[in-house]
């Protein structure tokens, strides 16, 4: 399709009105433009550029310890934020490995979430931290748990007239450590073959809370309650980590594609989940100590 309308929004209201009128929002363009040229899709007929909207930028640590991330915060900004690195490590891990430094400089967390790839890096950490997406439309504002934001590969539950404007991440409990990692074939410009997030809380040597999510292993990123149950209440020892990894592999419903077969992904799911859990536990124990 030929692009017949291109506007640059000067206010959030402009942007929301344009989206409601059928325009696709573009910020960093790292998914939209590439997807259009690869032949999978075409550029939308109507585009509204939202990248100049200052109020949708920014990363803010709130008084209650929660984090507010503007939809236009770039991966590079998030990965470099001391607040994110210290308290929301898994999100920093994820943002630090998206694309290359060019992708991270231009690509935004909002774009990453709304592209709805089951292999996206930031989804697992945000789901495990219990993050909420703020969606704005001409009729008002709606809040949706990030865990409920995706309907399938490339599909969100946002309404056609809604624009993602911010992501809120609640403060983790004391003694929480987290990690995200992926299986990759290349150090940059890579997409997770398999990814895993672990957010664990350790109090006096006992795992009091565990949240484990799998990436590129199901149609949408999701938590794995069986893996969480294997860890919760345990000492976070090798047996518990082994059981949690096995639970992730058992819950996985991967596809076979050019990046790996379903069998390979399932086998690697256990490995990557174990590594993510071990790293998160190690970070949590530093907090607990």
């Amino acid at each position, binding site marked *: 399709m*030929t*692009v*017949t*309308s*291109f506007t*640059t929004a000067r206010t959030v209201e402009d942007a929301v009105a344009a989206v409601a009128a059928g325009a696709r929002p*573009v910020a*960093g*363009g*790292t998914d939209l*433009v*590439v997807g*259009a*040229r*690869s032949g999978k899709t075409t*550029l939308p007929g109507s*585009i509204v*550029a939202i*990248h*100049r909207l200052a109020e949708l930028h920014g990363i803010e640590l709130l008084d209650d310890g929660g984090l507010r991330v503007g939809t236009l915060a770039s991966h*590079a900004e998030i990965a470099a934020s001391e607040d994110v690195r210290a308290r929301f490590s898994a999100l920093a891990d994820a943002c630090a490995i998206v*694309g*290359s*430094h*060019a*992708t991270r*400089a*231009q690509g935004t967390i909002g774009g990453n979430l709304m592209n709805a790839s089951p292999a996206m890096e930031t989804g697992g950490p945000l789901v495990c931290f219990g993050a909420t997406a703020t969606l704005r439309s001409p009729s008002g504002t709606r809040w949706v748990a990030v865990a409920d934001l995706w309907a399938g590969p490339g599909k969100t539950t946002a309404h056609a007239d809604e624009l993602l404007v911010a992501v809120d991440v609640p403060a983790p409990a004391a003694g929480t450590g987290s990690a995200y990692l992926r299986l990759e074939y*290349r*150090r*940059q*410009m890579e997409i997770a073959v398999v990814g895993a997030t672990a957010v664990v809380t350790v109090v006096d040597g006992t795992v009091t809370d565990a949240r484990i999510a799998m990436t590129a292993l199901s149609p949408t990123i999701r938590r794995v309650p069986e893996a969480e149950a294997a860890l919760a209440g345990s000492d976070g020892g090798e047996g518990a980590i082994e059981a949690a990894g096995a639970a992730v592999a058992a819950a996985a419903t991967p596809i076979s594609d050019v990046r790996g077969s379903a069998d390979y992904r399932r086998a690697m799911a256990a490995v990557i989940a174990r590594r993510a859990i071990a790293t998160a536990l190690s970070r949590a124990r530093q907090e607990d100590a």
Partner: protein
Amino acid sequence: MKVEATLTVNGTAYPVELDPGTNLLAAVRDVVGLTGSKEGCDDSECGACMMLLDGQPVNSCSYLALQAEGSEITTVEGLADGETLAPLQAAFLDLGGVQCGFCTPGMLVSATALLEANPSPTEDEVRIGLSGNLCRCTGYDGIVKAVLSVAGTSS
């Protein structure tokens, strides 16, 4: 449909008329006429098209040109000071960082951004930092040596 815009490339403002779907690489090469930046994969995999947008690296093949209006665009042509090569460019020549030259414009821009963000990188940081830029000739050693040779010495 053509849209009038002004693109500022290497400090010069260029009035252009663009189809809104035009990517920044095509605009700079075909409309502005600066052909240093290369189209390798056209898919954000290879980094040959890399430019700086307000100092930040961008794969220009994957960025809409109209979004760059109001930003400072830097291409490989903007790295030298007249006929005097930037230290990084001279180091690429001296240390075997160039063979066929196709990746070189993007590699130089990428390394410039890398050194701006991290003025004294380790060898590992250079290798990881540049791994979004593919080179089929050099085996990367000359490129890494060239970047390390100016690390900590350039701005």
